[in-house]
């Protein structure tokens, strides 16, 4: 014959059941709370044409990622000689940098505990910001606006001037060198900038030729990549880029012009020092770990409380501890300290430059990219069209040109 519970036992069991139901209800509510889902992103179908695909990416990308795609596409278009596309996209990417100043809703969101850092508008790390200007300047040269090219070089150096260590502030070589060249080209004094360039480069700079009408920009290897480290991917790291080629030789009109790699993009990426955002992410980690710990303690406490003998059990305490534990665990899970690793990933590892004087005309030319031991890494033949004076001719020689 089954044992009939006493009135007090029945009340106690009902109370316990209510407690368990309460915990279950909280769990259900929290589970349902997480049911909100973002709309499915539009499907991207690649066409195989990098420029068309990147334009589609820009259209489909979340607004905060568009400047990244614009920078990628701008550079890709330059390598393909699509200057109009490059000009438009780099201008768009530069415009995004103008939005960094002062309060910004998406930047505030990126700092908040429950949003990822990459929810902010992409403007890149200082080396990426500087390079948007560096590449835009090339097009200004081509458009016959050396003063605007010089303005870009000056901004490029400025973007790099908040490094932690003073040694690495504004230490790009080519932007200063080209600032000096543009000044000399316009009969201004660029000697200060030239001195800075020489100070930041231990070897020999390219011959300084203000009358040069053919400006050759070279790109070597593949640039750095970003990756996240730390238990919660809260630390931003760089995988340095690499380049087999150390220099290039351009053979044109009986001249052999040596083009060295004067700037190292990986060096620039890794010498910035700590970011303010790193402290914010570290704080997010502390919050995440603390809430996780508090959640564990509260849930264990709730478990212990739930299995106390009836005479000692406090159901209110059990439910309270369980609620605190769950909320704390959820807060911990929702905290997103992951670093922003969106990366302008089609940058080169090295940047080179040479200027030469050639009369207007069409010239067959060859460029050889050489490794450190002098062996030829790659060779390309092409026709160099030199514009009549006073226009400058711009040539971008890249190992990354398709």
């Amino acid at each position, binding site marked *: 014959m089954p044992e009939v519970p006493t009135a007090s036992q029945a009340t106690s069991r009902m109370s316990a059941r209510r407690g368990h139901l309460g915990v279950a209800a909280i769990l259900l509510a929290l589970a349902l709370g997480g049911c909100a889902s973002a709309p499915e992103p539009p499907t991207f179908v690649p066409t195989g044409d990098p420029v068309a695909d990147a334009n589609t990416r820009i259209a489909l990308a979340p607004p905060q990622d568009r400047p990244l795609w614009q920078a990628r596409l701008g550079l890709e278009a330059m390598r393909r000689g699509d200057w109009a596309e490059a000009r438009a996209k780099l201008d768009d990417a530069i415009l995004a940098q103008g939005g960094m*100043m002062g309060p910004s809703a998406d930047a505030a969101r990126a700092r908040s505990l429950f949003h990822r850092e990459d929810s902010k508008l992409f403007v890149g790390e200082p080396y990426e910001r500087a390079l948007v200007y560096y590449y835009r300047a090339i097009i200004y040269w081509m458009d016959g606006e050396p003063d605007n090219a010089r303005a870009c070089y*000056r901004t490029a150096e400025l973007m790099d001037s*908040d490094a932690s260590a003073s040694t690495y502030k504004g230490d790009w070589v080519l932007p200063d060198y080209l600032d000096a060249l543009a000044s000399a080209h316009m009969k201004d004094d660029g000697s200060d900038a030239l001195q800075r360039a020489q100070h930041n480069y231990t070897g020999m700079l390219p011959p300084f030729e203000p009358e040069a009408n053919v400006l050759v920009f070279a790109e070597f290897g593949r640039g750095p990549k970003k990756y996240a480290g730390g238990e919660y991917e809260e630390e931003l790291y760089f995988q340095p880029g690499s380049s087999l080629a150390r220099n290039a030789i351009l053979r044109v009109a009986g001249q052999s012009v040596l083009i060295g790699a004067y700037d190292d993009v990986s060096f620039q990426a890794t010498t910035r020092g700590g970011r303010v955002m790193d402290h914010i992410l570290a704080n997010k980690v502390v919050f995440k770990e603390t809430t996780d710990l508090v959640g564990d303690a509260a849930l264990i406490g709730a478990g212990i409380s739930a299995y106390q003998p009836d005479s000692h059990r406090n159901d209110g305490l059990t439910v309270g501890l369980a609620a605190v534990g769950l*909320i704390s665990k959820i807060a911990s899970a929702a905290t997103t300290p992951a670093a922003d690793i969106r990366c302008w990933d089609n940058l080169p590892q090295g940047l080179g430059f040479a200027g030469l004087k050639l009369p207007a005309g069409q010239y067959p030319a060859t460029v050889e990219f050489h490794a450190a031991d002098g062996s030829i890494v790659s060779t390309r033949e092409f026709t160099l069209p030199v514009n009549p004076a006073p226009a400058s001719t711009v040539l971008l020689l890249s190992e990354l040109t398709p």
Partner: protein
Amino acid sequence: MTGAMVFAAGCASNGVKNPDGRPVTQMNADEKGFVQGTGIESQDLVAVSDKMARSILAVPQIAQALTPPVIVLDPVQNKTRFPINKDIFLTRLRTRLNSQAVGKVQFLARDRMAALQRERDMKITGEVTAATTPATVEFKGADFFLTGSLESISTRTAQGQSDYVLYSFQLIDARTSVIVWEDSAEIKKQGLEDAAYR
């Protein structure tokens, strides 16, 4: 439990300012917009060109001239860190002078010389009609050159970014090279990026 539900619901997207964006707002060119940087902006252009236009009109060579002086615009030199359409300053200055002091000064359309020369050549060859003898040179020479330069000092540290821009303009006598008028305006701006970008 209610608190937990509110908390869970709060994980979605509250706290976003202007989630629906902002409607297009028409503003005066001299107003500071809600989108601002430390660079050269429309309100600077308006303030500087208005000041210069007023200043030029007070120059004795202009104010007391018996016949309207003829001025050619020579492109402004941009020595700042900001890539800009530098001609916009002189364009606005010219339009202000032309509208505020009708007939007191005349500007030459030197930037249209290629088209003007082509038109004159067609008149000379009889391809198009001419009201006067086309072979006679009627293109005017300049009495003055109006030009200027934009220079800047920029600083960027962890504490923020500061840009000082000096806008200076000159009126140069084309015959003697004497600078008959010069004036300047200076604007300094500073700001600090959100910590998320630092």
